[in-house]
């Protein structure tokens, strides 16, 4: 299991291959990739991602440990980018492998829901309508609460 926080883009195929390396012990790989979606009716230009360095890794490793305690998963890989990201760019990758699919599906979904509400990242919208910090969403809190 490993976590990378980086400005550079990542290659999903490299991340996927890392999870594939556990075959034939594993039968399932589930991946999530989050992208910069268009916003402000086409006037959004980019997101600027900031984080709290040492805490981020600590929180993400804690979330992975919690997922491992809940489901029989073998390996987890998290990559999260920081800095300025244009529309369509990759922001975050979460990949999980396991023997059976249910564990990988649930763990990957759980990790994303907890990352969204616990990992110290913040997004600033860069927009033709002006720049502004994004507000946390109530639906993300509800998604996290559903795992409790």
């Amino acid at each position: 299991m490993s976590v990378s926080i980086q400005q550079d883009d990542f290659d999903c195929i490299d991340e996927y291959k890392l999870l594939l390396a556990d075959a034939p012990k594993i039968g399932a790989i589930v991946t999530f990739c989050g992208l910069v979606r268009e916003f402000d009716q086409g006037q959004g230009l980019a997101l600027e991602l900031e984080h709290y360095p040492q805490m981020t890794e600590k929180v993400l490793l804690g979330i992975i440990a919690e997922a491992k305690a809940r489901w029989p998963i073998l390996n987890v890989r998290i990559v999260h980018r920081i800095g300025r990201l244009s529309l369509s760019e990759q922001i975050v990758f979460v990949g999980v492998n396991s023997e059976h699919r249910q564990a990988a599906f649930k763990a990957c979904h759980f990790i994303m829901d907890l990352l969204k509400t616990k990992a110290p990242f913040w997004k600033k919208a860069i927009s033709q309508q002006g720049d502004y910090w994004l507000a946390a969403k109530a639906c993300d809190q509800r998604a996290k609460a559903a795992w409790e």
Partner: protein
Amino acid sequence: MIKILFFASLRDQLACESASLCYSQSLKNIQDVIALLSERGEIWHKQLNSASVKVAVNQEMADLHTAIKDNDEIAFFPPVTGG
């Protein structure tokens, strides 16, 4: 010394990225730290006493009653929005 960090919109509003406080035994918990920082002005008082502000001590989530000690790193920030 206690190191204080501010992130994202909170840092912008306070126009302050980091600060240091001399540790003293009167600084028992986060509430005491907020009270001391609030003396810096109206904006500090308002922002640090907001219901939405989050706090971490040594990179672990904390609350008003979390005890502090010398050399701790305390961070204040708004709700997270990553992913």
